[in-house]
């Protein structure tokens, strides 16, 4: 059943409108001097909190060796199957003891859901979701990050493990007897 609400008649002040205009203007004036809530994106960019999961990237160690050994665990674990790796054998003498490195490494950023599983699973700490969060392109192909792009985005990880270097040194030193 319909309910009929009676409207109160306006009093004199309300009829004048002036107090409402003043109140509205004062709010506007307050915000003109108050600190800004928005930012001038993309010229200005927000600070990225620690542990943020941005675009997955590949990193090198401080000596410039690519850390990924193409074990393909990230390819296996990636829920939307965004990663595609073609493994290859390392030819250069210096890192021959590492044996394996990716020949090709593609991450399809139209598929990636930024879950971070690849970073979690990597036994070599070679893949990291870093601060980059905005990816755009004009074609599907552009949205696939290849190996070169991934290393460009990734940069160097300042870790000091040098697992493979130590193994090589142990090999050179030989056994104790």
């Amino acid at each position, binding site marked *: 059943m319909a309910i009929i609400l009676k409207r109160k008649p306006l009093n004199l002040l309300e009829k004048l409108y002036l107090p409402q205009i003043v109140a509205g203007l004062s709010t506007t004036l307050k915000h003109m001097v108050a600190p800004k809530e928005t930012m001038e994106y993309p010229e200005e960019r927000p600070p990225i909190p620690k542990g943020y999961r941005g675009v997955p990237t590949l990193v090198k160690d401080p000596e410039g060796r690519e850390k990924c050994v193409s*074990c393909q665990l990230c390819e296996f674990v990636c829920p939307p199957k965004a990663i595609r790796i073609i493994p290859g054998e390392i030819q250069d003498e210096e890192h021959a003891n590492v044996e*394996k490195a990716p020949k090709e490494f593609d991450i399809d950023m139209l598929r990636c859901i930024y879950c971070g599983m690849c970073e979690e699973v990597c036994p070599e700490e070679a893949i990291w979701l870093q601060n980059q969060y905005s990816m755009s392109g004009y074609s599907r192909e552009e949205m696939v990050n290849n190996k070169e792009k991934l290393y460009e985005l990734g940069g160097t990880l300042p870790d000091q493990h040098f697992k493979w270097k130590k193994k090589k040194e*142990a090999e050179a030193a030989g056994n104790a007897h």
Partner: protein
Amino acid sequence: MSDDQKDDGLISVFIDGEEVRTKPGTNIIEVAASVGKEIPHYCYHPKLSVSGNCRMCLVELGMPGKDRATGKPMLNDDGSPKIMFFPGPAIGCGTNAAPNMHIKTDSDMVKECREGVTEFLLANHPLDCPICDQAGECRLQEFSTSHGAGYSRFVEQKNVKPKRTRLGPRVMLDDERCILCSRCIRFCQEVADDDVLGFTDRGSYSTLTCFPGKQLENNYSLNTVDICPVGALTSTDFRFKMRVWFLKQVKSIDFETSVGCNTEVWSREGKIYRITPRRNDAVNDTWMPDSGRELYKLVESDDRLEICQVDQVKVSPSEALSKAVELLQASDGLAIVGSGRCSVEEQYALKKIAETTKAVGVYLVGRYGEDDGILVSKDRNPNVRGALMTGLIDSLPEESLSELGAKIDSGEVKAILSVKEDLIAAGLSKAQLQKVALISLDTQSYPSTEVAKVAIAGLTPFERSGALVNQQFRIQKFHKAVPGPSGAVDDLVALGTIQANLSGESFPSTVASIWKSLGESGPFEGLSFQSISDEGILLDGTGFDSLPFVEGKSLHFEPKQEAVAAE
């Protein structure tokens, strides 16, 4: 104890208190496996001698106690027989089941043993899993997870041993990963009969090597890679190509010879990465020759015929087939050259085509080589017996088609339908082939394809399904592992379409449907494609005893010829 030996010749043993009936002489690992209990092991292999060196299979054993003075069985308070367990553990692989034996596979002592063994194995083991091809199918990885401590107490420097050593043309060795189980050594001695591997040095410095001046290069070398429980031995062909956990396995048969080794084809997204043997105790045990593992390269070979052709012009499969039918209808004097590489189903279809067209001759091209007495036989065609049983041919094929050549010269043969054969290699000349209407169905383009009026692009054994009859008259199935090229047509569909058009009656063109007629009568009576088990079914080949089959003795095959000769 003798009262336990009942009529069936089986004895009772008790695994974790549960009674299991088993044949005397079965070792404990196998007895446990028969009831679905896995006793972890590395060095034991069902098809090799027992060496008992890894100690991973330690179990606790006990026998019902007997009073020494009276000889009476000792009983617990509740009247059950008292089991006297030996104070120390024993290896399961080296202990045969004895009547009334009690085995504990899961006690605290057994668990501690496994943890200890695992810790010692890992003491000098490298952390190579991310770059190790065995990862995903590595026993050490699996057992370290299930029976290991989960952490390392080893703080000392690990031993270094030779890595990336080439043992032979197809096998790489990483000594750091080797757990010294000696399976590979025993395989070379016992199965391949090529004793080239051995250990040098002692203790934790023990190292697997080839004898000086020798190489692991026999045609069975890759079996060592299969049986190596760790990633010490890896295949140079498969090395770093793909992780095993991405690969799909499909059951297949080795097409190389009439032995018909059972195989598994491993592929990912339509690309084959490797072929490994599949266990069949009646044919190939767990082995296969290296040569058969390379056959998958046929799929992507340079000379692959991917698109059908009519007069050397590329056409769609249906155009090629209708042109073929047209030619076949127009010409009398048709000869059919089938192949020992065709499946039983395709040979049956060919036989029907021969009947419909009243073919003036049906030939097969024989392929004969040297046998090695193990798993490579003299007959290099995998399915000559299938052709005999389907009635396509009634004598053994010859290597040369000279008889057909003579018929072409005399003008008796005016058209040839050839399946999976290079006629020029089989002894016909280009000039002879140019005289006839040649319709060929094949996967590769041969010199003879160039003179074919119609060349139908067919499928390799990895792209189709079917059955083959091996040297023992055992019919075995192979299955499609990867899709064929889009311009190609399934052999059976091609032959079925041709037969249907020629005869004007419908003809089945799938493996399952063709078996409806194959299984109706004749040598395959009562069989269907589904009812052929993965191990194959032994058929009655006595009707062909009079034929002089060429195969000599091999792993599970005795030729019948002596019997024939003695008569």
